[in-house]
């Protein structure tokens, strides 16, 4: 090796980075608070602390009304529906996309699954028909989004904005702006019930979260999703079928919306075109607060779950203190900005220390 050559000073060479026998675990940025907060565990710990603080505030202001088992189950039940959507949203955002149409898809799925025709068929066969219908409608909408984004090269923002308008409009047409009551008592009993004291809705959220975690962290699907979000061109030139993978992410989120529709149908015993209002904002906020990069490439299911819980708890605490929804909206806005600013700081600190 020609060391006497005018070797550029700032370029780190393979020779002088570290002794060859340096321990492999000496990853950069582990030192210091910023590095810790930048690591997966540290970031989640920050969210847990935020959640605990929120609970403390809830207990201090509302006392036993907050800390009762009933209230905790209420929080969880509330969070479950938006939680399932947020898990799906985590995948789309990890893959470098965004979906604004989730609320509209939930509404359309709930309406389609509760039409007279569907309910009649469900009576003749089984209430599972309604579940299948909701999920199929969600998957179909997701497919349209995915094809437009991946193959039609429409910007995700635009494609899903169109779906937002279109799906809710279609829901209104089908339902004729009427609220469709679910007549099947077995459906309500099943999804509205408990298993060992835990609401079925919460169990569904837990199952979806576990499934999402495994899918993102332990499978080729998840790895490819992160690779596409991190550098789509590199993924393409590594032989990954970027377009197909991207389309699948939107379909996955569509299915999550279908499941969420079933859950909201069970909770309200109705299907209506007004279900899922502003779900897109709540889901994106939960994902971003959870620590998933909006630009893609890095994401965490645990963070998303914590983000959902923080948001739902916040709503609960506000409601218990008789603060109106407008105040809640302002507080949510502030929290989103604070979380993102903090996240950026940590990311920058992490980068410069690396």
């Amino acid at each position, binding site marked *: *090796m*020609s*060391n006497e*050559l*005018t*070797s*550029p*000073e*700032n*370029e*780190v*060479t*393979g*020779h002088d*980075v*570290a002794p*060859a*026998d*340096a*321990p*492999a*675990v*000496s*990853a*950069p940025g582990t030192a210091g608070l910023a590095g810790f907060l930048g690591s997966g565990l540290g970031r989640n710990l920050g969210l847990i602390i935020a959640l605990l603080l929120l609970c403390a505030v809830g207990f201090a202001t509302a006392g036993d009304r907050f800390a009762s088992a009933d209230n905790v189950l209420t929080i969880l039940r509330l969070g479950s529906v938006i939680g399932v959507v947020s898990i799906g949203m985590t995948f789309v955002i990890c893959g470098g996309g965004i979906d604004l149409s989730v609320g509209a898809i939930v509404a359309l799925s709930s309406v389609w699954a509760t039409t007279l025709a569907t309910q009649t068929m469900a009576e003749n066969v089984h209430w599972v028909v309604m579940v299948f219908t909701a999920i199929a409608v969600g998957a179909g909408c997701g497919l349209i989004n995915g094809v437009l984004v991946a193959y039609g090269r429409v910007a995700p923002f635009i494609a899903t904005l169109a779906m937002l308008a279109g799906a809710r409009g279609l829901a209104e047409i089908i339902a004729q702006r009427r609220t469709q009551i679910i007549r099947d008592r077995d459906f309500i009993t099943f999804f509205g019930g408990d298993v060992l004291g835990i609401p079925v809705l919460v169990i569904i959220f837990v199952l979806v979260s576990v499934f999402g975690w495994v899918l993102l962290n*332990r*499978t*080729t*699907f998840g*790895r*490819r999703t*992160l*690779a596409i979000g*991190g*550098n789509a*061109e*590199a*993924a*393409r*030139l*590594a*032989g*990954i*079928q970027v377009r197909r993978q991207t389309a699948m992410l939107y379909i996955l989120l569509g299915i999550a919306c279908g499941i969420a529709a079933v859950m909201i149908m069970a909770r309200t015993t109705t299907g209506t075109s007004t279900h899922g209002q502003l779900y897109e904002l709540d889901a994106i906020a939960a994902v971003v607060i959870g620590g998933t990069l909006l630009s893609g*490439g*890095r994401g965490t299911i645990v963070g998303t779950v914590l983000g959902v819980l923080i948001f739902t708890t916040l709503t609960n605490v506000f409601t218990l203190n008789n603060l109106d929804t407008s105040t809640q909206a302002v507080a949510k806005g502030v929290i989103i900005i604070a979380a993102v600013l903090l996240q950026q700081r940590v990311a920058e600190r992490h980068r410069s220390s*690396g």
Partner: protein
Amino acid sequence: MSAQGRANGSPLLHMTGVVKRFPGVVALGGVDLEVRSGEVHCLLGQNGAGKSTLIKVLAGVHTPDEGHILWNGTEVTFPHPQAAMEHGIATMYQELDLVEGLTVAENIFLGHELSRFGFPRRRATQERAQELLTQLGHPGISPTTEVGGLSAANQQIVSMARALSRDVRLIIMDEPSAVLDSAEVDQLFDVVRELTSAGVAVVYISHRLDEIREIGDRVTVLKDGATVATGLDAKSTPTAELITLMTGRSIEYVFPTREAPDTAATPLLSVEDLGRDGEFHDVSFDVRPGEIVGIAGLVGAGRSEVLETIFGARRAERGRVRVGGTVVPPGSVAKAVAAGIGLAPEERKSQALVLEHSVGDNISLASLPAFSRAGWIDRGAERASSESYASSLEVRPRGVDREMRTLSGGNQQKIVLARWLQRGSRVLLLDEPTRGVDVGARSEIYTLIRTLSEDGCAVVVVSSEIPEVLGLADRVLVMADGAVLHQGPAAELDEHRVLDIILRGEAA
């Protein structure tokens, strides 16, 4: 050709000892340049000789670290582009810097809009634009059309009209003829002659020696960021002398020695009459196992496009690619990868690596199915394999948990190679394998490439650095303007001869 005003022109621009350093590189290490009013002064030099940096210093984009710039005899500095423009220096960049969504007239006056009380004077702008276009011999270009809809040649004209829209004393043209056909080049030269007869100086950059002979007055040759000759007569200086001045770069190349490959073996990679409109045509070559084929040529010759087409990242319009005798379906990276082809692309960071992810994840990106059953990744097996490839390629620092971006250029390149080796690729396409790799780590990459080929891989290497291609490859293709001008054993070529083939633009 009008010669008045040239012969005894006093220097309009006089640069002495200009030095520009970037972190880790000295881009300009002492450039002298003297340009007179009314002359066409040509800049010659290989890729990386410092021409682009020099232009940017003149345009006020880069501020030099040392040296003096005299403008009409007075010392000046150009701290920002506006300052250079105010002195009457206009630049036509190679990558056109027009705003596609704006009209021709709006582009021409971008940055110095004709306005009254902040409102654009649309009519006056259009009239003035029309005058400029007419002066350039293109009254047909409408000032109200959007630039995005114009041909490359017409965009070039708009770019020139923009340069002339100011009170200009010196125009820098960076390879203006690259996008033009011969009739358009003639037109360009008419404009240049008109300008110089009016006393405007032109700094003209081109790799085509015939153009320099036709339009140029004097030549300055750059090599390794320094002036090696200045004030040469553009008409009479022998080609051989110019080439000699450009070659023999001071970078030292250390190549491992090796045995000649088995020329009787069946080719592993066969490229037959490959072509894409406007990029390259009739490219044919074979690579045998254990053989390294190099493609030499200047930036823009179509080399990277050839590699990307073989790899399926661009769809072949003509011809075909075979690996081990089987035709690889065109236009599909996945199928090319499945056929055993791997590409280390030119822009490593943007095209090959996910910088925020771990080294291990980057290595295994192309091989995930090999480590998974029903989509479930066996992380132990994945990790063990990636670690073994990283350590056999001597990636430093060791370990696969680091974030990708913390590795140096040379080690990042090793990760890209490790990816394809893990995938089992037998055909490796390496585009500028040592770009961004410092001198010390280069020979390591060279040795690695040699080892891979000795292990039976078919390797194709593209590089702008001619000595690198000659030192690494067994056989060399010389490309210019999308055509293969020469194909033959590396041993029969030297840098001088390759440059000669490229600059003359014909098979010698």
